[in-house]
């Protein structure tokens, strides 16, 4: 059974696209057939982060509108042969993303891929709602900062009310997990930023991982390489751990490379 996972946040610029690229490459590295879809219509960016921008011919909207076949629009990754990217369109017409169109594309992707990662645009408008609508699971990307946490809470509400799983009688709700990114221990120690515990206490959802603020992320995006495929870094290994948890492995939570046994026990205590 394939799984549709939305990477969402509400707030912009928190690391959704970075995360979508890293998680999808991490899954593919482990041998799972994975496709990552850019839902940010009008602002194509995932292609650059994945390093396939020169090879975009057709896009998601072309497929929805019947101008191209899905196989023509999918860009096969040159580094990992079980990874593919479905780029978004540069069109300004956001209505091009129809629910029926999205459903048809997802159904076709399910025939080939184990994991379908949906990179949501910021906000809570149509694009974001379309990205989450058919999801089985959600990764809510959050920075330890007030407006990001507030928006994450908003998005968690939408995941529980405005999605297919929410509307379908008897369906399991979307499994949502929070991924804390741009975690900066130095700023937390100075009291400038909330701790992971603070964020989890407010959002009350399980923690998928903690990604440190890392120059490796900027480097990887400059190079067009998902951070887990670039040179080893703290961010890359934090993403690898998140991927392992996503596929059901138990991996100890680390902050900046250090184990946090207290954190994980508190976590399991809270998530019923």
């Amino acid at each position, binding site marked *: 059974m394939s799984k549709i996972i939305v990477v969402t946040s509400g707030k912009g610029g928190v690391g959704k696209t970075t995360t979508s690229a890293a998680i999808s490459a991490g899954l593919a590295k482990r041998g799972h057939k994975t496709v990552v879809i850019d839902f940010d219509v009008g602002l194509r960016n995932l292609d*650059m982060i994945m390093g396939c*921008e*020169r*090879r*975009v*011919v*057709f*896009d998601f909207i*072309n497929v929805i509108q019947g*101008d*191209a*076949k899905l*196989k*023509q629009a999918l860009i096969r990754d040159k580094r990992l042969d079980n990874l593919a990217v479905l780029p978004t369109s*540069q069109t300004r017409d956001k209505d091009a993303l129809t629910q029926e169109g999205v459903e048809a594309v997802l159904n076709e992707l399910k025939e080939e891929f184990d994991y379908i990662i949906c990179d949501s645009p910021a906000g809570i408008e149509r694009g974001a709602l379309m990205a989450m609508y058919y999801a089985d699971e959600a990764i809510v990307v959050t920075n330890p900062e007030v407006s990001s946490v507030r928006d994450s809470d908003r998005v968690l509400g939408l995941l529980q009310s405005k999605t297919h799983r929410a509307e379908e009688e008897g369906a399991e709700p979307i499994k949502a997990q929070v991924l804390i990114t741009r975690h900066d221990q130095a700023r937390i120690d100075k009291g400038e930023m909330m701790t992971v515990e603070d964020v989890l206490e407010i959002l009350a959802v399980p923690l998928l991982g903690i990604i440190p603020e890392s*120059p*490796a992320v*900027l*480097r990887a*995006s*400059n*190079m*067009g390489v998902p951070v887990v495929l670039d*040179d*080893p*870094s*703290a961010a890359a*290994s934090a993403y690898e751990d998140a991927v392992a948890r996503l596929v059901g492995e138990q991996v100890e939570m680390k902050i900046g*490379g250090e184990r946090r046994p207290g954190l994980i026990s508190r976590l399991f205590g809270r998530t019923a």
Partner: protein
Amino acid sequence: MFGFSLKPRKPNAAQTAKDRLQILLAHERSGASPDCLPELQRDILEAIRKHMKIDRDAIDIKMERGEGLSSLEINIEFPADQRKA
């Protein structure tokens, strides 16, 4: 614990980023944007169909944008025995 902090940073990440953007934006600003490709595909298909019987899905366009030049690779599959005289 990781070797990464000891390794010298590759100095060319920013330059690579700039090069990639310049190539991409040059193409996006010029008329050769991918927006015309569905139409191009349709026109090619129509032209070929005047001469041979091919399937609507039998056309596959691949593009690779480069610095000096880009390449457009068009593959058309047709059954050998379906050619019109």
